[in-house]
C-alpha cells in the first residue's frame, strides 16, 4: 500500500507542472488576446496549402493542353508585336516629353509630398467554394508581408484599378474580398466633378457596382464613362485609385441623392495577378513611380 501511494503521488507530482504550464499558457493567451482570429489563421494556413496544390495541379494540366495551341498563337503574336514595337518606339519619345512636363506642372501645383506605396505581387489561386460569398484566395500571406485590411489593386490594359481588401491572412495565403462583394464599401468620388459617394457591390462580378449618396445636383454633370476614384478618407484605401466608370444613373424624386451604376475598372473574370499595397514612406514629388494611372483622355 505505501508503494502504491508513492507511485500515485509521483504521477501527481509530474502532472502538476504540466497543468501549471497549460494554465499559464492559457492566461497568457487570454491576456494578450492572441486567440482572436487564431482559429481562422490556422485554418487558412493548413487548407490554403492544399488549395495551392490543387490549383497547381489544375494549372499544370490546363497549361499542358493549352501549350500546343499557344505555340501557334505565339508565332502570330510575334509578328504583331514586332509591328507594335516599332510604333511604341515612336510613342515613347512623346511620352518622355509629356512625363517631364507633368512633373514640372506637379511641382508648380505644390504636390510636394506624396505617399509611395510598397506593392506585394500575388497570384489568385482559388475562389470561394460557394456562390454565396465572392472571396478570392491569393498565394501570399503573413510570411510575405501581407496583413489584414491591406488594399488590393490590379492592372489591366494599362489601367490600375481597385480589386478589394484582405480580410483574412494565413501563413502562405490570404483571403481577399473583392469590390463587388455586398459587404464591401468604399468611399469614392467622381474624378472630374469631385462629387463624393459610397460604392458597394451586389455580390456578383457580372453586375454593376453602385455608387450611392451622390449629391442630386451632380445629375446634370455626370456623363457615361466618367471615372470614379477612391477618396482616401478611410485608413484602408489610398486616394485616387480607379474604381469604376459610370454606366447609368438613377434619379429618384423622393431622395436627396442619386445612385450611379458603375462598371468596375477591373474585369474580375480574367483577373489572375494582384498587388497588395501598404503605405511605405513619404517622399517628394517626382519620385512617385507607382502612382495610380488614369486611362487616356482623363487628366488631373
Amino acid at each position, binding site marked *: 500500500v505505501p508503494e502504491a501511494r508513492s507511485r500515485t503521488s509521483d504521477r501527481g507530482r509530474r502532472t502538476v507542472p504540466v497543468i501549471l504550464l497549460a494554465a499559464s499558457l492559457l492566461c497568457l493567451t487570454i491576456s494578450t488576446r492572441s486567440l482572436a482570429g487564431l482559429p481562422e489563421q490556422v485554418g487558412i494556413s493548413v487548407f490554403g496549402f492544399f488549395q495551392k496544390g490543387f490549383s497547381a495541379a489544375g494549372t499544370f494540366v490546363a497549361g499542358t493542353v493549352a501549350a500546343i495551341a499557344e505555340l501557334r498563337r505565339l508565332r502570330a503574336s510575334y509578328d504583331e508585336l514586332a509591328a507594335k514595337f516599332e510604333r511604341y518606339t515612336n510613342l515613347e519619345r512623346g511620352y518622355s516629353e509629356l512625363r517631364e512636363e507633368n512633373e514640372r506642372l506637379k511641382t508648380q501645383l505644390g504636390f510636394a509630398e506624396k505617399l509611395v506605396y510598397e506593392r506585394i505581387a500575388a497570384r489568385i489561386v482559388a*475562389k470561394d467554394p460557394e456562390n454565396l460569398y465572392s472571396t478570392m484566395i491569393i498565394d501570399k500571406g503573413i510570411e510575405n508581408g501581407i496583413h489584414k485590411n491591406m488594399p488590393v489593386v490590379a492592372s489591366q490594359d494599362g489601367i490600375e484599378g481597385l480589386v478589394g481588401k484582405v480580410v483574412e491572412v494565413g501563413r502562405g495565403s490570404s483571403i481577399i474580398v473583392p469590390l463587388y462583394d455586398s459587404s464591401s464599401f468604399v468611399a469614392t468620388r467622381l474624378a472630374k466633378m469631385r462629387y463624393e459617394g459610397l460604392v458597394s457591390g451586389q455580390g456578383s462580378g457580372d453586375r454593376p457596382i453602385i455608387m450611392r449618396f451622390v449629391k442630386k445636383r451632380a445629375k446634370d454633370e455626370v456623363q457615361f464613362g466618367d471615372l470614379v476614384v477612391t477618396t482616401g478618407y478611410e485608413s484602408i484605401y489610398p486616394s485616387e485609385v480607379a474604381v469604376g466608370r459610370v454606366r447609368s444613373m438613377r434619379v429618384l424624386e423622393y431622395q436627396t441623392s442619386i445612385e450611379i451604376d458603375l462598371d468596375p475598372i477591373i474585369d474580375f473574370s480574367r483577373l489572375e495577378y494582384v498587388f497588395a499595397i501598404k503605405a511605405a514612406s513619404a517622399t517628394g514629388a517626382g519620385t512617385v513611380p507607382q502612382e495610380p494611372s488614369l486611362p487616356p483622355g482623363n487628366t488631373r
Partner: protein
Amino acid sequence: MIRSISLSTVVLVGCILAQSTWFDAISILGVVPDLSLIVLIWLSYTNGPVEGAISGFLAGIAQDFLSSSPLGFNAFVKTSIAAAVSLLHGSFFIDRLFLPFVLGAAGTLAKAISIASLSLFFGDKVHSYSFLDRILWIEAAYNGLLAPAAFFMLSLVKKLFSMTQGRE
C-alpha cells in the same frame, strides 16, 4: 466507423478544394456547382445520420476556413442538410436519373432555406440567397444535373464508404 467518417471527410474536403480551384472553368453564368453538397447528400442517404453529420460538420469547418463566411456557417449548413437527408435514409431505391436529380436540386433549396434561417438570427453577418435571384435556381439546376453522374460514380466505390465494412 472512424475509417468511414475520415474517408468521407477527406472526400468532402477534396470536393471543396476542387470547387474553389478548378470549378471556375465549368461555371455557368458565374455559378459553380456544389459538388460537396451532392456528395454529402449521397453519404447521408446511404449511411444514415451519424456519419453524414460528422463528416458534414468537419467539411463545413474546413470550408469556413477557405471563405470569408463566419466560422461555423458552413458547418451548420452542411450538418443540417446531412441530418435532414438522413431522415430519408433507406426510404427509396435510388434510380439512375430521377431521384439523384431531385435530391441534388432539392438539397440546394434546403441549403438556401437553412442559410435563410441562419440570417434570421445573425442578420447581415451572414450572406443569404435571394429566392428571386437567378444564382440559386441556376445552382439548383446545375446540382440536379450533376447529381446523377456523381451518385453513379460514388455507387461504384460504395463499399469504401460503407459503415458495415469496418465491422466485417
